[in-house]
């Protein structure tokens, strides 16, 4: 299925990825080609076949709900572009 530039821009907004005009143009063609190509999957009869969730048949393992690591805010924040005290800093989300 072909996508148009507006669709590409809408998807990019959903994915929170800023793309420029020229980039959007190029992606429109590329994404359309890829979507065209994957459409051959419609040839496969998958009636009654369940979508695969895991290649290895195993039950989801359960673990004890227990604290395994000490509090270590300093290490958690060690790579933060900006932090104050024990918090990550982001641009203001709510006005007022």
């Amino acid at each position, binding site marked *: 299925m072909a996508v148009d530039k507006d669709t590409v821009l809408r998807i990019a907004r959903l*994915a929170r*990825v800023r793309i420029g005009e020229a980039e959007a143009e190029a*992606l429109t063609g590329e994404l359309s080609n890829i979507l065209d190509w994957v459409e051959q999957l419609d040839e496969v009869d998958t009636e009654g076949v369940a979508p695969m*969730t895991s*290649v290895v048949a195993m039950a*989801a393992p359960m673990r004890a709900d227990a604290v395994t690591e000490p509090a270590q805010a300093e290490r958690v924040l*060690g790579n933060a572009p900006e932090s104050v005290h024990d918090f990550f800093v*982001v*641009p203001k989300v709510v006005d007022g």
Partner: protein
Amino acid sequence: MAANGELTGLGLAEARDRLAGGEITARELAEAHVAAVEAARPLNAFITETPERALEMAEASDARRARGEAGLLEGLPLAIKDLFCTEGVLTTAGSHILDGFHPAYESTVTAKLWEAGAVLLGKTNLDEFAMGSSNMTSFHGPVENPWRRQGDNRPLVPGGSSGGSAAAVAARAALGATGTDTGGSIRQPAAFSGLVGFKPTYGRCSRWGVVAFASSLDQPGPLTRSVRDAALMLGGMAGHDPKDSTSVERPVPDYEAALTGDVRGLKVGIPKEYLIDGMPGEIETLWRRGADWLREAGAEIVEVGLPHTKYALPAYYIIAPAEASSNLARYDGVRYGLRVEGDSLIESYEATRGQGFGAEVKRRVLIGTYVLSAGYYDAYYNKARRVRSVIARDFGQAFESVDVLLTPTAPSAAFAQGDKMDDPIAMYLNDVFTVPASLAGLPAISVPAGLDPDGLPLGLHLIGRAFDEETVLKVAGVLEEAAGFEAAPAFLAR
């Protein structure tokens, strides 16, 4: 003391034996490899070199050995794909968006390697977030294959995404390297670089601490210069990890013990659907020769059908981007890596991700977002997962009558840097023979088996039953022996 070239030319298992025999020390081996890593710089195989750490780890290794505490990989210098988090050592995933990221923790696989005594030489270059088959998409620049076509000096790609790992091991700058394989990212670069590359069964090696691309497919494994070395190194990487809920609780066998050289009575399947249009003659010939070698060794060759093979690649290019778009949502410029300021939080996210991700990553994030979006989820994503079930069923049926499958690894030898860059689908076709086993989670290995008319290495590919790494290794060992691949690349790090 042995000359550097001699030490870096050893196999992993040979070096282990010499260390155990007291003929060489870990320190000598590390020094030779630190020099080789430096000499390999023209290839751009490493993003980060860790010479001081290598020498410290080697000295600690010699001390452990002196105390009688030698581990499985004691004193063996390895390169680590820069997708594995290494505590305190820059980890980039080949992306601008992870600028300056120094993990506060160690991935399970690398922690196991260090626990087994291995020595870190550095972090190797890769396609950005492991998305690619050429190593051209790395923010840290392309990697050059140490091999060249005869009479042609144009730089070739080492394959991808584990291209830096492949180039480093092929150029003798490391005895072995970790890779990760989502759709062929260990096996295709191994084939392009004249190496052995082994993707174990999904769940065999822990994914914890490995930067995620497509979680239902990603699997770590070794790149080495021999099948024995792959068996040895996998033994140091595999095992259950409670921190990865998809890691499987099974004992790790002695993989080296599987290399008996005896394949008499084994049934080897030749899937006829892998004979694709436009397959170069030399690859078809090599494939046939591989079957002959195994027949001569006493195996029975059986033609089998894997009727949905051609649908594996398009299914993969829905499932992998869908999972990637979800996994890569974490890169928001708030907690680590690059941050580009914006007037609002959302604008900061958009600017950070717009500048931080390269073209291929953006393409896949957008494809993934599209196929998961309302109205398309069933038609694309669920359809692809249904086809995935059908492909796994094909393999299950084939393995009712054969023990292992033999195919080529890649549809061509290494190509020139810059080729296939203007057509994403042409690039994706590199993985046509490796993706089906990935979708089914099966163990698969590439073994160097011959040269093309330009003198470039070609690989043969064996696929086994889930958790039957031992049969795969055993047959790979026989192929390796029969092929007698001894060619060396044009560039050696010395």
